């Protein structure tokens, strides 16, 4: 078993990219690998409360996140500065996340075998 850290940087609904990243995350977890997620930059918007993308015919990617728990995805981290720069507090998100300061991210990355950019 390897430990994977998926480093997501893009907001949802800008194309199929985020949805396709979530497919890889689900597959990795389904293959019983230790799987964690780090939301950086505009990716913190992926978990913003109150999105209604289905009104525009888009897939609700935020709703996939609660299912990740069933797949034993270990941790969902968000960079504290990315949240702050965008005026978001952890309470504005639809899931509890672990907030990580920018200075601690290199250490977080070093604790994983595979860094998966997205």
């Amino acid at each position, binding site marked *: 078993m390897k430990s*994977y850290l998926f480093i997501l940087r893009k907001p949802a609904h800008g194309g199929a990219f985020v949805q396709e990243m979530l*497919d890889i995350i689900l*597959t990795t977890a389904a293959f019983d690998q230790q799987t964690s997620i780090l939301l950086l930059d505009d990716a913190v918007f992926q978990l913003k409360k109150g999105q209604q993308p289905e009104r525009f015919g888009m897939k609700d990617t935020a709703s996939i996140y609660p299912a990740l728990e069933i797949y034993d995805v270990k941790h969902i981290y968000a960079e504290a500065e990315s949240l702050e720069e965008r005026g978001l507090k952890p309470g504005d998100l639809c899931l509890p996340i672990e907030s990580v300061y920018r200075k601690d991210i290199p250490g977080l990355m070093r604790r994983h075998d595979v860094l998966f950019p997205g």
Partner: protein
Amino acid sequence: MKFAIQINAGPYASNAGHTALRFIEAALASGHEIVRVFFYHDGIYHGLKYATPPDDEFNYAAKWSALAQRHRLDLVLCISAAQKRGLLCRDEAERQGKRDDDLAAGFRIGGLGQLVEATRHADRFLVFG
């Protein structure tokens, strides 16, 4: 060293595919192993048989096919990303009532499990694009 490679950008959208090709050539020349090259997102267009760039321009599908033949590379296009973008293998084309498959020589269709498996067996995982 064993490398797993993922390519996410379309052939003419960025230099990701070009850089990946050059990296793989250099890695093989140095005696390293390429476990698998996995094409995802718009990267699947690297395997489109019908791409016909002008003669004096870079033909990605042809380059990959030649490289795969020379080094027995495993080039895998993600099935869900490819089907969504209209690029079908022979079985799926027949099932959908379409006439032909769209894959350039040396490419095959596979699932995301093959990407995860490649990253598990590799010493290094590199993503281009």
